[in-house]
């Protein structure tokens, strides 16, 4: 009964359809604008995940899990952290200290390396944070407690 109520609310569905792509786009903007102004991986990851979670709340968890299965969020979590670490290790092998981005670009004075380093690192952070947020969400809505009390996604308000 409750399951169908949220899904049948046309206003929510229409607005969500319009908003979710914008939220995702804004997440990407914050991500890639991070090295010029305020922004960066943490914020972008949270915004991006929030967009997808809104989608899951309106259209059901299953709809989101078709594109973003639980296992994929786990892999992305790990991959994001590894991407961050890989930049550090790459700098190490190119002759600098761990995370010394200047070493990524041995030819020029290192400005380009700093730029490259921070972009890749923030990308790693963004991926890891977004995946973690979604995994936390899945973790809570999949728990038995949630289903017993009808708190799971798309099942309406708590009693």
């Amino acid at each position, binding site marked *: 009964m409750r399951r169908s109520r949220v899904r049948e609310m046309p206003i929510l569905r229409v607005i969500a359809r319009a908003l979710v792509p914008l939220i995702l786009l804004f997440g990407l903007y914050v991500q890639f604008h991070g090295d010029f102004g305020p922004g960066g991986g943490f914020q972008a990851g949270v915004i991006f995940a929030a967009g997808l979670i809104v989608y899951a709340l309106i259209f059901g968890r299953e709809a989101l899990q078709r594109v973003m299965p639980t296992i994929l969020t*786990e*892999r992305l*979590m*790990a*991959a994001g*952290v*590894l991407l961050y*670490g890989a930049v*550090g*290790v790459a700098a*190490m092998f190119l*002759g*600098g*200290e*761990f*995370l*010394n*981005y*200047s*070493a990524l670009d041995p030819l020029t004075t290192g400005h380009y390396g700093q730029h490259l380093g921070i972009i890749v690192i923030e990308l790693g952070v963004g991926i890891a944070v977004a995946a973690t947020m979604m995994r936390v969400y899945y973790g809570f809505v999949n728990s038995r407690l949630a289903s017993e009390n009808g708190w799971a996604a798309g099942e309406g308000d708590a009693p």
Partner: protein
Amino acid sequence: MPGLTDHFVVLEVVLPLLAAPACVLIRNPRVTRLFSLGIVAACFAIAVALLIQVRGGGVISYHLGGWPPPLGIEYRVSTVNAYLLVLVTAMALVVMSFDSRGGPPRVSESRRHLYYAVFLLCVCGLLGITITGDAFNIFVFLEISSLSSYILVSLGGHRRAVMSAFHYLVMGTIGGVFFMLGVGLLYQATGTLNLREIAERLEPSLDDRGAVLALALLVVGISIKLAVFPLHHWLPNAYSFAPPKVSAFLAATATKVSFYLLATILFVIFGAPFVFGELRLHVVLMPLSILAMFLASGAAIFQTDLRRLLAYSSVAQVGYMTLGLSTANATGLAGGLVHLFNHAVMKGGLFLVVACLLHRVGAVHLDALAGVGRRMPVTCAALVIGGLSLIGVPGTVGFVSKWYLVSGVLERGWTAAAVLILLSSLLAVVYVGRVVEALYFRQPAEDHVRPGLREAPFAMLAPTWILIAAAIVFGLTTNWTYGVAAEAAGLLLQGGI
């Protein structure tokens, strides 16, 4: 171009940090076990190499990201923390190699890789706290190690394990926030986060309320994580409901790293003249240590569960360490530091014995253990030797640490405290005696007779006996343990790390 050996300092932390997400990607339980074992072994090798390099007063400084110290994060290794790095990695290696089936029994095969990831993160956090020379970086690593140890404790299987983990989390978070506030006040006073810079710029005096408040927040915050006597409430539950392997690891490392942190804060940042000369912290710390020795040992006597008994004994042993700290002289501090190593070895070994007993007997109530000594002689012999070491019988590590502690306390002129150390050992005789009595001299009750009871498997016994053997070897030759501890104590008293 710097070679790989120049990066050892940072690799010590980065290896387990990156191995954890790699475990999540690998997923296969057997492969992740071997992989994380290899990583921990590599960390151990690096730690030994670092200790050899800095022995005799050397210092290695590593600038993360190429930013020099006052601005960037500095990793700094000297005898003081190299000693602890070896201890943490060695204990991680032993605990990890314990029991080839891997993982705590309640963690299902499909999730075992996550257990290894969390374990590696815990190792990473502990190593990070030890190695970093940046105050806020310490907070971050402190929280990494704490968060992962809450998870590890909650895996105990019993429903109370989850409750204990929650309590541990609440206490640990409060401690962490106190620590963070303390660091903030130090930053406000000095404008830097580098530990050595803070120490140089800070001129603490009793009139400087900011500095006194910072010291208070830092000491209370760390004392919660260290389980100093009135703040120990979380420890007995956490250690007795956690998987015994986890208890072995945490008892041997987590409180030890906190102790190192406390010593660094007191001696390096604020300096012994201020803390013990002006502020007279020992007036509080010494009685609390002695209370811990007596009340926790007294509580241990009345426990019927072996794990709980050992946990209370841990609180008492923290008392010995902080007593060594409060003497603030070279002998006493070295005694505290050597007890840090010695207690890690014996308590780690004892908790591994508990794991062996749990595996075979299924319970570690003293009633359930009645008469087990005759059926599992090798396992129980390890328990007896570890117990003797807790008492401080000559020939074991416990004797070595108590010897130096008593000398340090006497040097300070606290004759009564020295007598109390000896008296508290009598309490240890009682609680160890109860276990031995149950194991060897009590007939098993009717419903506890187990006809098929055998020795624990070799894969469990070998790591256990390595620690127990270490408790004897380092009780007979003290060059390595006391030698290094004395050097570290000398460095700390000069205020250098």
